[in-house]
């Protein structure tokens, strides 16, 4: 203990400047985070200026982890584990005590201030911190496992800050390369190896590196472990059977199972146009779908779409699984699926009639815990959500603060005819039964999200649930508006297939957006 305390004290004396900067940045983060909770500040986020919430938020979000990493790397490298000239190698240091001193330093100057700040932020936001002890500890654990552990591991295999920065550059290049490779592997952005497998691998290698360095100082072996981890992730990315995983996670409906809703491919819409000019090398297509049979208690999230096209000449194209971000509500009659084709391929297929297949991977939710509330003038508590406010404005939004994490699944529903905001000039009120919905989801089931602040800030945007309606949603959400809040519960996941034979792809092509400048009309083509 004497040795641990001795090393810790020495590090405190040496690195007090770095520790002070890190604490000051953390305080600045806290101050700015509190500012961001105010809706006015939040809305003004886009306005520039050195002291604007947006600017400071971006700055502190970036600088706080950097200052922590800098501090931890400096402290670890104070007794560098790489090299053969350090005085401490031939002094009576015991590796366990040296490591303990470094870990205690990191806990004292990273975790403790963060925990204090988090308790303060929860109180300031109006939540009782003692109710969220597990979540707060979870946040600390996440910081240790996914921030401190890799930082310490990196610091133990590098001799100086310059070497650490070079290592970070290599890691950044590796990540860019992996991201580029992932775009070339179909379905890799939709499914993949489980997060827990990757996390275990990552944490295991970090621990192995740290122990190898402190016990044996075998830098070559430790660096080899890191390269091995990078290679293992690369192999997982390339060799994962994505389609098998999708088929296992979203199985086909079994023979006796009743389909909870019906989707059908509709004829092409002639007036549809691309939202943005497509890339010259690609052609954007849109397939309209009809929706029927979805019960009033049900909601569907389309998790993935796979499109295949078979041309008469034997040519086959496959989009790979993509996440379309489509929600289906009971009152909805139709929806659309967008995808892009390489121009050359499109030109080859457009003149002939092709067979089109859509595979839809979805999750069926049952609406649950419905409760109605009337939007008050001031802030209000939404049960199982947090503290919210709805102020008049152009965008119909409810701004919420939640302790530790955004709620898992949350649905807001309102009858647009009961909107209390005054109608604009020339606008007609919505008819009864026309619904607006707002959806929020947070897939994780952990007690808290990884981050610095324990107060999750999120917005619930209300939009017409029937995409074809063109009516405006009034001026935001005004006091007196009745809203139904519910927490949909996922029931099951399945996959269905839709087929349309003999279709002409050209009919489903989105028209390029036409931009008009004076008398000159230009298109993207």
């Amino acid at each position, binding site marked *: 203990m004497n040795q641990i305390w001795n090393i810790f004290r020495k590090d405190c004396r040496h690195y007090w400047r770095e520790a002070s900067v890190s604490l000051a940045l953390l305080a600045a983060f806290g101050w700015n985070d509190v500012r961001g909770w105010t809706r006015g500040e939040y809305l003004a986020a886009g306005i520039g200026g050195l002291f604007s919430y947006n600017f400071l938020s971006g700055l502190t979000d970036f600088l706080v982890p950097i200052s922590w990493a800098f501090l931890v790397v400096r402290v670890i490298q104070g007794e560098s584990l790489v090299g053969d000239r350090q005085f401490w190698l*031939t002094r*009576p240091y015991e590796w366990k005590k040296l490591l303990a001193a470094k870990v205690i330093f990191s806990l004292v100057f990273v975790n403790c201030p963060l925990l204090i700040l988090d308790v303060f932020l929860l109180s300031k936001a109006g939540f009782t911190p003692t109710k969220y002890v597990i979540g707060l500890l979870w946040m600390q654990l996440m910081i240790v496992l996914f921030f401190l552990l890799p930082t310490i591991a990196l610091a133990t295999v590098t001799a100086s800050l310059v070497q650490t920065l070079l290592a970070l550059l290599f890691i950044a290049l590796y990540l860019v390369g992996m991201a580029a490779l992932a775009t070339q592997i179909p379905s890799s952005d939709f499914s993949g190896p489980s997060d827990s497998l990757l996390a275990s691998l990552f944490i295991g290698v970090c621990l192995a590196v740290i122990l190898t360095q402190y016990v044996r100082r075998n830098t070559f072996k430790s660096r080899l472990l890191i390269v091995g981890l990078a290679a293992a992730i690369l192999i997982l990315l390339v060799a994962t059977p994505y389609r098998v995983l999708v088929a296992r996670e979203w199985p086909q409906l079994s023979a006796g199972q009743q389909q909870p809703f019906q989707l059908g491919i509709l004829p092409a819409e002639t007036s549809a146009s691309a939202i943005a000019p497509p890339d010259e090398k690609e052609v954007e297509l849109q397939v309209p779908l009809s929706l029927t049979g979805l019960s009033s208690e049900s909601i569907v999230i389309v998790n993935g779409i796979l499109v295949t096209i078979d041309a008469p000449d034997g040519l086959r194209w496959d989009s790979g699984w993509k996440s379309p971000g489509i929600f289906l509500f009971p009152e909805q009659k139709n929806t659309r699926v967008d995808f892009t084709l390489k121009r050359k391929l499109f030109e080859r297929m457009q003149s002939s009639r092709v067979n089109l297949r859509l595979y839809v991977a979805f999750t069926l939710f049952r609406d649950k815990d419905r409760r109605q509330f009337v939007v008050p003038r001031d802030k209000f508590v939404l049960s199982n959500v947090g503290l919210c406010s709805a102020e008049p404005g152009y965008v119909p939004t409810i701004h919420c603060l939640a302790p530790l994490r955004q709620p898992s699944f949350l649905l807001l529903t309102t009858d647009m005819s009961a909107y209390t905001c005054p109608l604009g000039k020339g606008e007609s009120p919505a008819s009864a039964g026309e619904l607006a919905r707002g959806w929020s989801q947070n897939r994780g089931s952990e007690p808290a999200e990884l981050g610095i602040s324990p107060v999750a800030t999120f917005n619930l945007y209300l939009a017409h649930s029937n995409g074809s309606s063109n009516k405006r949603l009034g001026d935001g959400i005004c006091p007196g508006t009745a809203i139904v809040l519910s927490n949909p519960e996922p029931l099951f996941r399945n996959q269905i297939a839709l087929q349309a034979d003999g279709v002409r792809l050209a009919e489903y092509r989105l028209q390029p957006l036409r931009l008009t400048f004076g008398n000159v009309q230009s298109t993207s083509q």
Partner: protein
Amino acid sequence: MNNAIHTENLVKRFRKVEALRGLNLTVPEDSIYALVGPNGAGKTTVIKILMNIFKTTLGYAEVMGRRSGELNGRQFTSIGYVSENQELPEWMRLDRFFDFLRPFYPSWDRDLERDLMRQFDLPVDRKLGKLSRGMRMKAALASALAFHPKLIVLDEPFTGLDPLVRDELIQGLLERAEESTIFISSHDLAEIESFASHVGYLEQGQLRFSEEMTVLADRFREVELTFETPPPLPAKVPVEWMQVNCSAGVVHFVESRFDQEKTNARIRELFGEVRNVTFAPMSLRSIFLAMARTGREEQ
């Protein structure tokens, strides 16, 4: 007598370079052992293996009865190590450095620390990074002596130091020699000769000899043979004779296994009648030079 250091067939390779080639070294307890040899001979590598800074490729090294690869914090409470290229915490003031080290050593002697500070005339309020090279070496040595180490390992401690500082360092060492084994590598042969009890000569990763200084001094002689007429040099000279050369009727060589009777007999056998024979004792420096030159010629 026990051995403070013992190695057997020690091999160290750095990729393709073989720094040590089967080194067998024994340093008796309570000796002052000087390891000498030309640059690149492998002296620092031996020391770093002994101090568990480098791992061995092959072979075995033992320090104070424990394998060098197993030396840990506890063993270093009785080992003092000073190296010319050791990195000290330059940001620390000297007094803080000693304050920091003190709790690591159960046998730390505050009085001895003060004596050493005084003896080496060390400025306690100065940062280590601001000290001159000589001062830094003295500070390092003081920090390695103040806990009464059983083994003191010094890697080129005198390199680049002025004579006064060298003298102070040697004085400081000698005053503690009775309680410790000292293992020192150095180029400063004249200084080493004045206090080493044993000497080992390392060349190309192999120990050419390792013995007591007195035995070494008795073994080496500079031999000068004077002839009436310049003699032809024999085609084959004994392997113990080094640097054999002849000029104007005088033959010079270094005898590395001197025994007056045997050497005289060998001279007569090879040269016949010699007008005059002289055997001059050699300094460690002369022995080192003769060994080094012979080694280079053999290469």
